[in-house]
C-alpha cells in the first residue's frame, strides 16, 4: 500500500542549468522549508559546494505533496553535475525510478547532461524533461525542446516550462513527478533488501547509512547484516528520513529512501553499493550494486607537519566512507616522509578532496604533482601500471610505455576557436572535429593525452578564452607515448617528491619551468644551491638559489631584546616546518609551487 504513494527521483542537469535552485524550489513549494529559512541551495550542504556553485555529493530529501486528494512522499536524490562525479550519479540513479532532466532554455542540451541521461535510460528510469530559465530574455523554448527530442529522443511536448529562480510553474514539475514517474515496485512482505547508496560518519551514532529500501522493511531493533561484510550483525538503533535534515521515524518500508543507524563503529563495515538484509530472515539475492570505479588522476598527499600522519589517515578514512571513488594507499617519500598515494576520478575531484581535507579536518597538506596511470612494458615482457613516478623502473628495463588519451570536448564562443585549437595543439592534441552548435557556441573535439590535461590545461584554457570555454572529457584508451621521468636535484640530491613523468619533447621546457619555480620558492640558505632538472644522468636545466647574505635585523632599540627573541623564534618555527632534502631546507610551498606553472 505505502509504496504506491512514493516517488523516488533525481535531477539531471549540466552545471549552471539550475538544478540546485530547482531542488530548493521544490522543497519550498512542498512546505519542506519555510521561505524565510531558505539558505540558497539547501542540498549543497558542504561549504565548498555552495562557494563553487556545484553539487559534489548526492543529498537526499523527502517531501510530502498533495495531488488529487492523496498525499505522496517524494524522495529527491540530488546528483552531481560534473564529469568527475559520474560515479555519484550512477549511485543516485540506482535508488530512483525517475529523473528530471533540467535543460536551460537558452543553452540547450550539454554533453554531460547527455551522458547522464543515457545512464538514466540504461537504468530504466522514466525521464521527464524540464525546461528551465524561461524567464531569461535569451530563452528559446522551442529549440530547447527540439534539441531534447533530437539529441535524446525524448518527447518534450509536455515538458514543464519553469523558472526555478523566479518560482514559475513549480507545481507542474511536482504534478509530473506524481503522474509520470512509476511507484516503486518492491514487496513489503518479502525479506529485507536495501541498497546502501551513501554513508556518513557521526561521532555519536557511528556510521549513518543512506539507503533505498527495495523489499521488506526495517525498524529499530531489526538485526541487519551486509552481504559483502558477511557474518557481522548489527542492531538497528534508529531509522528516519531526510527533511532534508535527518528526522527519526518508526520504520522504513519498500520504496522508502531514508537512513539507518546501527551503532556501526568501523567505517569499513559498510560499503556503498552493498545490500542490507535482515539477519533473521535474509534475502537470497543481493542487489546488483555498483561497478568499481577506476581513478584517473593520482597524486601524493602528505601532512605538512609529519606528526599529523595519523590525522590524515583518519580523515581519508572518513572521506572514503561517503566518497567510495576516493582510493588511497600508504606512501613514503624521502623528502616528505609518510603520506598517501591517492587516486581520483578527475582533477576537480582531486581539488575537492584536498580542500575538504584542509577545511573539514583542519589539515595542512603537501601534495605532489598529479600523475596519470601509465602502462609500462618491461624488457622482461611484463606490463606494469605505474601512477607514481618514483615507482617507474629504470629506463634500461623499459621496453616502451603507454599513456591514457582522452576525447576532450571544449565548448566556447566562435571567436575563441583559434586560441583553443592552439592550446590543444600545444598539448599534443590530435584534431578530431569542430562543430558549430549555434551562432554562439562551438564544440572543438581533440584527442589529448590525459597527462597534458591534468597539467594546467584547464586554467590555461580559461585564461586564453577569458573564462568562456568549458571542458568535458572522457577516457578513450591507451596509446604508445615517448615518455621519460624528469627528476629534480637540489644541491645534487634527487628529490623524489618532485619527479614527474613527461613526454620527452616537453621535458626540457618543463624542467626549466620547474627549476625556475623552485628557485623562487626555496629560501636562500648559507650556501649556494644548484637546482637542476635531469633525465637519467643528463642535466637539462639549471637554476641557482644564491647563498644567503643578509638577514640581520636593525637596531636593538632601547635594549628591547625580547622583540629580537620573538623574531628569532618565528624564524626558527618557519625552519622547523621545512623538509630536508639532503642539506637543503625546502618549504612546503615549494612542492606546491611547481603545480602552478603558466604556459
Amino acid at each position, binding site marked *: 500500500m505505502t509504496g504506491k504513494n512514493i516517488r523516488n527521483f533525481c535531477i539531471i542537469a549540466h552545471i549552471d542549468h539550475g538544478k540546485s535552485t530547482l531542488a530548493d524550489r521544490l522543497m519550498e513549494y512542498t512546505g519542506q522549508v519555510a521561505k524565510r529559512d531558505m539558505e540558497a541551495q539547501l542540498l549543497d550542504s558542504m561549504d565548498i559546494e555552495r562557494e563553487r556553485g556545484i553539487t559534489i555529493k548526492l543529498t537526499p530529501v523527502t517531501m510530502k505533496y498533495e495531488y488529487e486528494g492523496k498525499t505522496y512522499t517524494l524522495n529527491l536524490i540530488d546528483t552531481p553535475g560534473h564529469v568527475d562525479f559520474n560515479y555519484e550519479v550512477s549511485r543516485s540513479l540506482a535508488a530512483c525510478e525517475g529523473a528530471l532532466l533540467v535543460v536551460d532554455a537558452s543553452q540547450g542540451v550539454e554533453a554531460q547532461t547527455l551522458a547522464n541521461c543515457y545512464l538514466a535510460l540504461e537504468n530504466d528510469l522514466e525521464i521527464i524533461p524540464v525546461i528551465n530559465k524561461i524567464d531569461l530574455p535569451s530563452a528559446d523554448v522551442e529549440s530547447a525542446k527540439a534539441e531534447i527530442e533530437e539529441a535524446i529522443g525524448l518527447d518534450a511536448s509536455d515538458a514543464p516550462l519553469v523558472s526555478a529562480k523566479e518560482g514559475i510553474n513549480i507545481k507542474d514539475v511536482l504534478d509530473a513527478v506524481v503522474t509520470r514517474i512509476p511507484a516503486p515496485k518492491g514487496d513489503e512482505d518479502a525479506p529485507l533488501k536495501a541498497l546502501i547508496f551513501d554513508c556518513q560518519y557521526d561521532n555519536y551514532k557511528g556510521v549513518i547509512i543512506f539507503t533505498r529500501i527495495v523489499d521488506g522493511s526495517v525498524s529499530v531493533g531489526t538485526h541487519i547484516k551486509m552481504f559483502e561484510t558477511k557474518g557481522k550483525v548489527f542492531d538497528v538503533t534508529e531509522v528516519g528520513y531526510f527533511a532534508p535534515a535527518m528526522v527519526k521515524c518508526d520504520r522504513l518500508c519498500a520504496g522508502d529512501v531514508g537512513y539507518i543507524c546501527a551503532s556501526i563503529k568501523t567505517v569499513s563495515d559498510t560499503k556503498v553499493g552493498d545490500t542490507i538484509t535482515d539477519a533473521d530472515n535474509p534475502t537470497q539475492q543481493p542487489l546488483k550494486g555498483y561497478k568499481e570505479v577506476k581513478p584517473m588522476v593520482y597524486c601524493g598527499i602528505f601532512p605538512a607537519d609529519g606528526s599529523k600522519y595519523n590525522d590524515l589517515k583518519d580523515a581519508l578514512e572518513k572521506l572514503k566512507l561517503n566518497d567510495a571513488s576516493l582510493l588511497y594507499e600508504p606512501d613514503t617519500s624521502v623528502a616528505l616522509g609518510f603520506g598517501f598515494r591517492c587516486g581520483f576520478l578527475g582533477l576537480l575531484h582531486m581539488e575537492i578532496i584536498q580542500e575538504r581535507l584542509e577545511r573539514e579536518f583542519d589539515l595542512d597538506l603537501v601534495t605532489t604533482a598529479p600523475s596519470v596511470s601509465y602502462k609500462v612494458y618491461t624488457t622482461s615482457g611484463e606490463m606494469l601500471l605505474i601512477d607514481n613516478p618514483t615507482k617507474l623502473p629504470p629506463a634500461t628495463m623499459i621496453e616502451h610505455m603507454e599513456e591514457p588519451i582522452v576525447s576532450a570536448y571544449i565548448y566556447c564562443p566562435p571567436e575563441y576557436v583559434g586560441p583553443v585549437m592552439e592550446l590543444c595543439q600545444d598539448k599534443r592534441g590530435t584534431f578530431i572535429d569542430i562543430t558549430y552548435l549555434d551562432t554562439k557556441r562551438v564544440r572543438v573535439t581533440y584527442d589529448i593525452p590525459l597527462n597534458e590535461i591534468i597539467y594546467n590545461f584547464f586554467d590555461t584554457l580559461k585564461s586564453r578564452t577569458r573564462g568562456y570555454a568549458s571542458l568535458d572529457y572522457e577516457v578513450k584508451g591507451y596509446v604508445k607515448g615517448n615518455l621519460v621521468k624528469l627528476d629534480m636535484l637540489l644541491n645534487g640530491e634527487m628529490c623524489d617528491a618532485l619527479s614527474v613523468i613527461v613526454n620527452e619533447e616537453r621535458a626540457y621546457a618543463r624542467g626549466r619551468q620547474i627549476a625556475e619555480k623552485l628557485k623562487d620558492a626555496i629560501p636562500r640558505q*648559507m650556501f649556494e644551491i644548484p637546482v637542476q632538472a635531469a633525465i637519467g644522468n643528463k642535466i637539462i636545466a639549471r637554476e641557482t638559489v644564491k647563498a644567503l647574505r643578509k638577514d640581520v635585523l636593525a637596531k636593538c632599540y632601547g*635594549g628591547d631584546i625580547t622583540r629580537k627573541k620573538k623574531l628569532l623564534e618565528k*624564524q626558527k618555527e618557519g625552519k622547523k616546518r621545512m623538509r630536508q632534502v639532503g642539506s637543503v631546507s625546502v618549504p612546503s610551498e615549494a612542492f606546491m609551487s611547481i603545480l602552478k606553472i603558466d604556459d
Partner: protein
Amino acid sequence: MKEPVSIYIHIPFCRKKCYYCDFTSVCDIGGQDGYIGALQKEMAFYRDRLEGRPVRSVFIGGGTPSVLDVGNINAVFRSLDGFAVGADCEITVEGNPESLTAEKLSCFKDNGVNRLSIGLQSVNDKSLKAIGRLHTYDDFLHCLDRAVSLFDNINADVMIGVDASFDEFAHTVNTVVQLPLSHISCYALEVYPNSLLRQLIDGGTVTVTEDEDALADMYDYALDAFRRNGFDRYEISNFAKKDRQCIHNLNYWKCGDYVGLGVAAAGYLDGVRYTNTRSLDEYLSGITVKEKQIIDKNESMKEYLMLGLRLEEGVSLSEFYRRYGIPLTEAFDISCRADCLDLSDDRLAVRKDKFYALNYILSDLL
C-alpha cells in the same frame, strides 16, 4: 662589590616622525613636562631598588632627546643624581642636527654627558628628504662643528638602504669616515609593512634599496671603508675608533643588567626581562611594566649566545662556563653550523664573511 648596571632613558618625542619609524614616539613636544614628571617617579622607584649599585653607563635615547627643553633636561639629570653614577660612567645622549642647538649642547655638557650620538643616516639630501628627515647634510655639519668643541666622543648613525643606489651609499660612507667622529652605527633600513615609508615606496614616490644582495654589497663596502679609516667593527652594526666602543651597547650584548626607564623602554634586572607599556597615556597614568619574562638558566644561555655572537670577538667559552657551569659546546650543538663559526681556544665567533646572516645561524643553533 655590587654588580654594576646600565640605565636607558626613553624620550618619546620627535618634531616629526621619520617615515620608516616603527617606534614609540609622538610629535606633541608640548606634552613633555607631564612626561618628565612621570619619568622622575619611575626613576625614584628604581633608584631605591638599585640600592646604590654602580651605574656603568647611561643612554638617553628616543625619539629625539634633543627636543627636550633645557628645564626638562636638567630635571632628568637631577633625578639621575640619586643613582651611583661615577666619574667614569659613559653618559650618551641621542639627538638630531636640527634640535642639537648650542644651548642644548652646553646643557648636556654641563650635566655630565660625555658621549653624543647624532642621527645622520645619509649625506645625500635627496635620501634624507625621501625618508622624512628634517635636516640636510649641511645642517648636520653645522651641528657637528658645534659639538666637537664640547665632546670628544661622538657617534653618527648612518643607514644602509636609504640611499637608492650603491654609488650614493658609497658617497655617504666615504664622506662620514672623514668626519671627526669616534664611532659609527650603521644599521640597515627596515621597511615595516604598515609604515608610511612602505606606502610611499609602493606608490612610487620614494626609492630606497631593499634588495638583499644590494644591501649586502653596501654592508661589505662600508665594512671595508670603515676599517681602512680606523673604525673597526666590534658588533654587527657598530664601528669604533680604538677604545671608543660604546659601553652601553656592549652591556646589552654581554647580558649585563640594565634599567629601562620611560615609555616602551625595556630592562633586564635580576634575571627578569621587562618591557614598559607602549602607550603614552598608560605611562602617564603610572602604569609602567607591561610584559615580564623570567629568564631561567636555559633561556639565559640562549640569550648569551644570541647576543654575544653579534660581537666580532664572539663569546668567551670560559666566561660561559663560569656563568652556567656547563661548557658551551655541550649546551649547544655548534657542529650543525660549523661552516659559519670559528672556534678558537677560548672563543666562539661567527666567521667574518657570515656575519650579516647571523639570524639564520642562530635559528639553527638555538
